[in-house]
């Protein structure tokens, strides 16, 4: 027998039955159900367990503020822990498990905690588990951690994809209830660009849960007509299933659209969810209000739910938790609920209302001036105990209890920019404070105007004002006739004098006793209360808990509620899947990948690639038979030094600098002189930060009087360009200089080795003489290659060999490397990767990223003399500071192992031979190390105190981290060709 608790009517499609499973048992619901309503229709009341005491729990609400009915939704890699059954749209094949229970939901071993609750009061753990000290990590904490958490992750990679997007509009309307819809119609008819977003899959808001007619017809008629009109307008974007999660600066909102969460799996290629960044000129918050419970003893049993939620279940979903229901209310909601229940043929055990003078609005037993003082039923409500006005106690049989403690306007979004809500005595709730500065308007229940008529009117009025601020005239629209009962309320936060605990935060098991204890121990600010008791820290973010706790705090402190504090909210409005924030940036698409012009060719050569920044570069090119990367790298190095090697160096930053003041400009951004660099020549440049530390280095070529090309390191290409623009626009705006990056435009290859000239002569067109005389070391020029292709040639060398760098437009890069390799066959031209590049520069003692680590000065690099004192350049002044010029300053040196078979380790620290290895004796450290195939042993370069004076000294290189310690000799960092003969060959 299924759906025994299904009633007549409702907004479900009985022609579309949907099968689903909960805790392994099969059930059936209908299209339009949520998991919660479908379970209720199937008479399932027990859905979850609380966090601390593992109390049995059922649904409390009908929305995203649900603290109790949390499940693990879906299976396998798609499992979603802590999913609210109350907003999980039902689909065929849905599978859900209860969580935080063992072995089963109805019998949970850890429910034992409930028995010991007296020992587990707020903050008890701060006062114990301290002795013996070692026991915390070994014993106590593991036990606590095992009990921690609610649902569990699958730990498999999320198989779904997520997307992002950006939307622009004049008015963003948050919430599609009566206020939101009337605002949307008003603004849309005025031609404004609007977005209407609602977290629900059915627009209409509270209207879907209540029975009030609009223009004497069912509210759904007006809703459907309104939606139809809005859908027909090009300037309107309707976004159901979309939660606006946060208000950020300057009219930017985040919103999550659940594109496929109502399906078993997303369609091929479609996202599960999309994160929209919405840019809006004005916003209207019409997010309604959330009902709040009353704290009375054992107010947390399955079957006890909020009255407004119960209205939703019976009216919208035609489901009821019981056939005989009692109502406990301090405002009119409970009475309206009773009428709705009666209309559905449900028996009312009684309406209990603490207000002595309240009158009946229908045919139900009313207990005025009475309160619920206790409840019974372990896994589901069986009966309640009522204390009558007379003080007499009465027991009432009922399987459900609808509770209404009044309504809290959903002011969250008005607080996201630290706006403070203000207290409204009339409705005993906080309403939005100053929001104007944010361009945000509020309408309807969200501003504390609870009647349908008010909501409709305010939505229209606020839309008109908002558009008015944008100089857009909107006109009043015809609104349907609606109920205008503003309601009345007498605050009732807790029922005193009863036995047993009264829950405030249902999920985290924070009771009125905990609040009292916190106050007693001096935790008297709202912040202290939350942190000490964990109140409001649960997945419902305290939506149902904070207000009641604040009221009780106020009472304890003998202050008014506003004096005591307020409850402010931070984003997100409801919890959001982390993957939704990441969007498409996943796996290998986490960041863009930049490929060099020779990438395809390198792939064909079987190159091994390495990430350098966003670039992928060939690290080495294994040859058949090579089993270890070292074999490949050694071969590449030896071949280059013996004959000729080729390496793609396109990744180096290239900045084109032109203008009549270009030379002056470059002279200011480099520490060394450039003013006198002749046309057709290249020079090494050392760039300092203003604090005198080396920022970058590279070569800059002068192609014409007013035209330079600067190269930067691969890593700093972007930051150097930014730095140059700063110098150009902010420091020396009077200079005639223009900058543009050409890193991408040119494919550039290093051709290095004794035969590099011979090879290039076969490529470079004959009318260009690149002989040593015509094109000496550090020459540069614009040439043509391969029969007329424009190219640039630089005679510069990172390897220390006779070497050139040749550049052609990127689209020809692939063809050029193939040409070079072909032309190089007779010289056994060898492609080399970044490893060989690294080895050769270490053999030459050239500083690179490992040396230029952001703390290195020109002095450290042995280039102090390069910093010109005869001109103004960035960094020169502060480079003179005492601390950067100590007599024992670190100096770059070469390091050679005494025992040639031992390995020099980058990152090892240097100690005097006889001194103990500790920080006090630290003499410096090794920055880079490699095996030098030319020298036949390992070498390193590093920084050593007063290193320039210590050539020949024997030191210990210690690396306790890797259990290495060797003796090294301090030598010149120029391991190969110290005189630089090869460069000039």
């Amino acid at each position: 027998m299924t759906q025994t608790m299904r009633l007549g009517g409702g907004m479900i499609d009985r022609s579309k039955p949907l099968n689903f499973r909960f805790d392994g048992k099969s059930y059936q619901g209908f299209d339009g159900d949520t998991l919660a309503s479908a379970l209720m229709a199937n008479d399932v009341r027990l859905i979850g367990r609380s966090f601390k005491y593992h109390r049995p729990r059922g649904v409390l609400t009908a929305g995203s503020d649900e603290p109790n009915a949390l499940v693990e939704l879906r299976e396998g890699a798609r499992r979603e822990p802590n999913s609210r059954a109350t907003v999980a749209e039902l689909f065929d094949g849905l599978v859900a498990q209860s969580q935080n229970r063992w072995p089963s939901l109805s019998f949970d071993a850890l429910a034992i905690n409930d028995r010991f609750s007296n020992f587990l009061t707020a903050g008890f753990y701060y006062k114990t588990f301290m002795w013996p000290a070692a026991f915390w990590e070994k014993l106590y904490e593991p036990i606590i951690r095992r009990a921690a958490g609610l649902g569990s992750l699958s730990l498999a990679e999320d198989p779904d994809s997520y997307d992002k997007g950006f939307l622009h509009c004049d008015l963003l309307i948050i919430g599609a209830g009566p206020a939101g819809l009337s605002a949307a119609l008003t603004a849309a008819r005025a031609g404004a660009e609007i977005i209407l977003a609602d977290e629900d899959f059915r627009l209409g808001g509270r209207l879907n849960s209540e029975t009030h007619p609009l223009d004497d017809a069912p509210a759904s008629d007006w809703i459907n007509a309104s939606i139809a009109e809005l859908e027909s307008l090009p300037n309107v974007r309707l976004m159901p299933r979309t939660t606006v999660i946060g208000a950020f600066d300057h009219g930017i909102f985040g919103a999550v659209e659940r594109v496929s969460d109502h399906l078993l799996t997303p369609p091929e290629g479609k996202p599960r969810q999309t994160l929209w960044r919405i840019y809006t000129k004005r916003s209207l918050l019409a997010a309604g209000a959330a009902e709040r419970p009353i704290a009375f003893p054992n107010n947390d049993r399955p079957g006890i739910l909020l009255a407004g939620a119960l209205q939703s279940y019976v009216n919208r979903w035609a489901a009821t938790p019981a056939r005989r229901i009692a109502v406990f209310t301090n405002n009119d909601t409970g009475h309206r609920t009773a009428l709705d229940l009666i209309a559905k043929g449900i028996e009312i055990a009684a309406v209990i209302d603490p207000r002595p003078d309240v009158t009946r609005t229908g045919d139900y037993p009313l207990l005025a001036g009475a309160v619920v003082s206790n409840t019974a039923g372990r896994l589901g409500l069986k009966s309640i105990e009522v204390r009558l006005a007379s003080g007499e106690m009465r027991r009432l049989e009922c399987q459900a209890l609808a509770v209404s403690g009044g309504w809290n306007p959903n002011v969250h979004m008005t607080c996201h920019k630290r706006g403070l809500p203000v207290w409204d005595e009339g409705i005993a709730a906080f309403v939005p404070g100053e929001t104007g500065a944010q361009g945000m308007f509020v309408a309807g229940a969200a501003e504390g105007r609870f009647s349908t008529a008010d909501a409709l009117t305010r939505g229209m009025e606020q839309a008109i004002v908002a558009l008015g601020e944008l100089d857009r005239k909107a006109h009043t629209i015809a609104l349907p006739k609606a109920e205008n009962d503003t309601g009345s309320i007498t605050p009732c936060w807790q029922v005193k004098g009863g036995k047993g605990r009264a829950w405030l935060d249902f999920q985290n098991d924070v009771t009125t006793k905990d609040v009292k204890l916190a106050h007693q121990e001096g935790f008297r600010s709202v912040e202290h209360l939350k942190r000490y008791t964990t109140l409001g820290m649960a997945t419902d973010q305290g939506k149902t808990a904070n207000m009641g706790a604040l009221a009780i705090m106020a009472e304890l402190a003998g202050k008014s509620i506003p004096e005591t504090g307020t409850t402010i909210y931070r984003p997100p409005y409801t919890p959001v899947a982390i993957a939704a924030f990441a969007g498409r940036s996943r796996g290998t698409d986490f960041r863009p990948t930049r490929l060099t012009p020779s990438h395809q060719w390198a792939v064909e050569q079987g190159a091994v690639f390495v990430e350098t920044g966003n670039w992928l570069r060939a690290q080495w090119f294994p040859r058949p038979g090579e089993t270890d990367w070292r074999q490949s790298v050694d071969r590449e190095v030896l071949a280059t030094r013996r004959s000729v090697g080729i390496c793609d160096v396109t990744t180096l930053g290239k900045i084109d600098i032109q203008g009549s003041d270009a030379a002056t400009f470059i002279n200011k951004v480099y520490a060394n002189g450039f003013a006198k660099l002749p046309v057709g020549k290249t020079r090494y440049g050392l760039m300092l930060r203003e604090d005198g530390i080396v920022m970058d280095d590279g070569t800059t070529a002068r192609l014409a009087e007013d035209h330079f090309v600067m190269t930067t390191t691969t890593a700093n290409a972007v930051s150097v360009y930014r730095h140059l623009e700063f110098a150009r626009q902010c420091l020396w705006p009077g200079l005639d200089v223009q900058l543009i990056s050409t890193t991408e435009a040119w494919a550039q290859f290093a051709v290095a080795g004794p035969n590099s000239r011979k090879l290039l002569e076969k490529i470079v067109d004959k009318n260009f003489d690149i002989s040593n005389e015509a094109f000496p070391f550090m020459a540069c020029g614009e040439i043509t290659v391969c029969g007329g292709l424009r190219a640039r040639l630089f005679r510069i060398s990172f390897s220390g060999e006779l070497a050139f760098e040749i550049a052609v437009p990127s689209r020809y890069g692939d063809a050029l490397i193939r040409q070079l390799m072909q032309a190089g066959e007779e010289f056994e031209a060898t492609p080399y990767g970044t490893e060989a590049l690294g080895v050769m520069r270490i053999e030459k003692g050239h500083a690179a990223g490992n040396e230029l680590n952001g703390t290195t000065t020109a002095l450290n690099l042995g280039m102090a003399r390069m910093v010109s004192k005869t001109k103004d350049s960035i960094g020169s002044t502060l480079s003179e500071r005492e601390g950067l010029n100590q007599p024992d300053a670190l100096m770059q040196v070469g390091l050679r192992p005494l025992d040639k078979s031992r390995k020099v380790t980058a990152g090892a620290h240097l100690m005097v031979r006889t001194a103990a290895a500790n920080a006090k004796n630290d003499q410096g450290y090794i920055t880079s190390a490699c095996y030098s195939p030319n020298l036949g042993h390992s070498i390193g370069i590093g920084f050593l105190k007063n290193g320039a004076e210590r050539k020949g000294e024997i030191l210990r290189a210690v690396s306790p981290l890797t259990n290495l310690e060797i003796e090294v000799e301090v030598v010149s960092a120029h391991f190969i060709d110290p005189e630089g003969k090869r460069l000039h060959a």
Partner: protein
Amino acid sequence: MHSLKPLTPLGGTTPRRDEYPGLILMENPDWAMASVAARAGSVKKLASAFTTFAQGKLAAVESIDNSGKITNFWTAPDQWMVMAPFASHESLAADLKAALGNTASVVEQTDGWCRFDLSGAHAVNTLERLSAANSRRMQANRVCRTQIDHLGCFMLCHKAGQDFSILGPRSAAASLHHALTTAAISIA
């Protein structure tokens, strides 16, 4: 003529073409480009020199000028990108420099960029998933530089709501293409 065979930014010998419902995505390597930046104090001289060369005029802020035989669009204060068919204008930068002399700094940009042309009803639905620029309201002959999945790109609008071009860093062409296709497919 030289012997070197060009590759498109995506590494093909012919441009890549993708078709989706409501969207055609084309890799387009057929444009020569050069940046033109005015020398200090010579914007006016440059403008007239350019007009003599290209007939059209230097584009206003965030616009494209198609009025002449050679197109250009605004890229930064006193800086423009000039575009002409590659087949006929591979030497665009040199030609411009010859024509503009010392009124401007000219830099070849042809291979600094990859270009993807989007056309169809879904063009803006695709672009609004990629960039904060308001492509839905973008008028014809407008351009802006914006961010697409961490890449600085130019977005050119040729026909409002219909025809766009995205210019991105050439080395990241594959990543940019991946972003464009993923967005195109994910349109619900």
